[in-house]
């Protein structure tokens, strides 16, 4: 395993090719490192001395104190980079991220330059990431060494991607959802360090609880499979695979060969290795965010708590179709307990229609009864925020705060926050996943129910179908691991 600590937790960073032009990589990367509050020392290297963003520009690596910076961020042209690696290694640099292009993506000369760069890094024992990549983020280390913007809050999702743009997408989703990231890296041309190398390090990284990767081509599939298999059993890995519908079917004499599209074989490999495969970008992010924030279910039985009938019906449909989940049947003792807490017209089954639970103020108690029952493995909770949604209309209108509106608005907002907190706390105390879904997550992101869900560290799912899809991935992974640890 490569030691990638100097890449993700360096004591200091050198930006080579620092520029005064705010549109150039050598400015943007320096800006992003400083802007996001990296606490270690930051050095800027360029041909001419001067000052950029308050940083003294040095014209030679020799002027950098030995051991002051473990990471080198390269924005200089190919011709100077081999010597740059040697000079910086002499100053104690242990890892380099090469953002500069002009390598294997640029034709035969670039391929040769890339091979030379890799050879020099190997000779020096230096980690080489990229070239032609966007950079890394490492929020727990307050590090944003990249030529693109999105800098997510600190969390436990680690991202590695063969496409830099997907690193940005995942980081943007993370920032938007409030579910943070431990590390992110764009593998670029992956000349020396590939997605599988990052995964190996993420699996041992204490800041990371789940890895999220984007891959298109895999050069040595067998090697990838053999290396990823032990990793997936330790920490969940979510994969988004590009090129799923591309041809790739072999001209084959056999039926088996004719049916073995690249995608079908990749899919089988993923299932065999224990990798969670998502089919869309948001599904991939939400699966990873769910692994990062919810406990794994120990079974398939899922209860739906809803404040309105239709939502519950559609969610029940989704659970019935989900391959790894079942709509739980409510045992008689739970039914009897719920009778005590809900008005007589409640649904008397799963989905549990809470109709009127608001006025009797029993929603947290009902949630507790359901989540704590041994027959229930997971809960999907719908309807948080609808009281605050009404409150918002009242608050913004001409009648507020008179006619008792101020009081009711306060009440509604307090209640929604209470429900959201109850869902998160019960999930912790029972060790069962409780997923909260409402379209208000996107329609009204400042709704107190949505905000409280996020402040409790949970993802607020924009639809119940997306919550069920994420939960289905957790259930599949949990079952995969269970079968292989108990042998049953």
């Amino acid at each position, binding site marked *: 395993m490569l030691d990638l600590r100097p890449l993700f937790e360096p004591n200091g960073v050198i930006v080579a090719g620092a520029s005064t032009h705010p549109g150039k990589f050598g400015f943007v990367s320096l800006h992003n490192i400083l802007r996001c509050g990296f606490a270690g020392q930051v050095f800027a290297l360029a041909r001419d001395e001067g000052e950029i963003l308050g940083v003294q520009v040095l014209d030679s690596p020799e002027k950098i104190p030995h051991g002051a910076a473990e990471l080198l961020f390269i924005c200089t042209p190919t011709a100077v980079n081999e010597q740059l690696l040697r000079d910086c290694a002499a100053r104690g640099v242990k890892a380099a991220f090469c953002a500069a292009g002009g390598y294997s993506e640029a034709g035969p000369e670039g391929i040769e330059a890339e091979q030379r760069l890799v050879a020099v890094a190997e000779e020096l024992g230096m980690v080489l990431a990229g070239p032609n990549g966007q950079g890394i983020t490492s929020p727990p280390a307050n590090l944003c060494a990249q030529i693109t913007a999105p800098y997510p809050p600190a969390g436990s999702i680690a991202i590695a991607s063969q496409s830099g743009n997907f690193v940005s997408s995942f980081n943007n989703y993370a920032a938007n959802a409030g579910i943070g990231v431990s590390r992110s890296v764009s593998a670029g041309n992956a000349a020396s360090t590939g997605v599988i190398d990052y995964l190996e390090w993420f699996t041992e990284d204490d800041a990371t609880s789940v890895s999220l990767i984007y891959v298109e081509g*895999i*050069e*040595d*599939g*067998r090697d990838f*499979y053999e290396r990823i298999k032990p990793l997936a059993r330790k920490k969940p890995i979510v994969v988004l695979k590009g090129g799923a519908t591309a041809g790739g079917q*072999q001209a*084959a*004499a*056999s*039926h*088996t*060969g*004719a*049916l*073995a599209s*690249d995608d*079908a*074989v*990749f*899919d*089988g*490999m993923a*299932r*065999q290795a224990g990798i969670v495969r998502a089919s869309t970008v948001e599904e991939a992010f939400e699966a990873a965010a769910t692994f990062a924030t919810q406990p794994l279910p120990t079974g398939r039985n899922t209860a739906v708590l809803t404040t309105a009938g239709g939502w519950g019906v559609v969610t029940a449909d989704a659970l019935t179709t989900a391959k790894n989940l079942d709509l739980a049947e409510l045992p008689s003792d739970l039914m009897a307990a719920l009778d005590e807490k809900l008005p007589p017209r409640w649904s008397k089954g799963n989905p549990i229609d809470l109709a009127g639970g608001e006025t009797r103020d029993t929603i947290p108690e009902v949630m507790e009864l359901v989540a704590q029952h041994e027959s229930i493995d997971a809960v999907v909770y719908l309807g948080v925020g609808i009281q605050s949604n009404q409150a918002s209309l009242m608050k913004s209108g001409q009648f507020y705060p008179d006619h008792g509106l101020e009081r009711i608005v306060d009440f509604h907002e307090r209640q929604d926050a209470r429900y959201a907190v109850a869902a998160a706390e019960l999930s912790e105390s029972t060790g069962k996943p409780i997923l909260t879904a409402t379209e208000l997550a996107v329609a009204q992101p400042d709704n107190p129910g949505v905000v409280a869900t996020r402040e409790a560290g949970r993802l607020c799912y924009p639809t119940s179908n997306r919550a069920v899809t994420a939960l289905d991935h957790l259930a599949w992974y949990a079952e995969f691991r269970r*079968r*292989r640890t108990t*042998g049953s």
Partner: protein
Amino acid sequence: MAAAGVPVSAFVTVTSSNDPIDLEFPVVAKLCGDTIAHKSERGLVRLNINSAEDLTTAVDDLLAAATPDDGDVSVLVSTMIEGRRELIAGITTDPQFGATLMLGFGGILAEAVADVTFRLAPVTAIDAEEMIDELSSQKLLGAFRGEPAVDRAQLVSLLVGLSELAVERQDIVSIDLNPLIIAEGKPIAVDALVELGATNA
């Protein structure tokens, strides 16, 4: 195949209708040769042969149907296995992942229906069970039209054996067990197409 744990129907191979055949009727007869891949498409399979006389005719007809391109040919005569359900199991060599095992619903509609799942060889018994679970047409694996449910344990050992064969025999490029007929719940290979080459590694 039998040595790899794949149950096969009883068979003899003949090159003339005068060769001795000691099988219970009904039997099936097929023309076989190293270069013949898809027999049904060429009409080289005769099913449900119930008498010695019909068998003689079938063997003669099949041998006569061979073309010079087919090279050396023979007729494979085997006990006719009856079952309503047909699976397909096979091995193929993937350019990225190497020897790969497939399970799916088979017979003449195998490629059109494409209800199949793959794993890299070799597979464990748990992997094989999960392959069976993944097929979309699960109802066809249960008790079906008077026939018992598919014997999953036997199907698992067949899949494990087939995948191990692919690992042991690096010269196997592909194998089709199609159809794998479910007779009284047991999967039985009644035809196998094995493609050999330099290596599948």
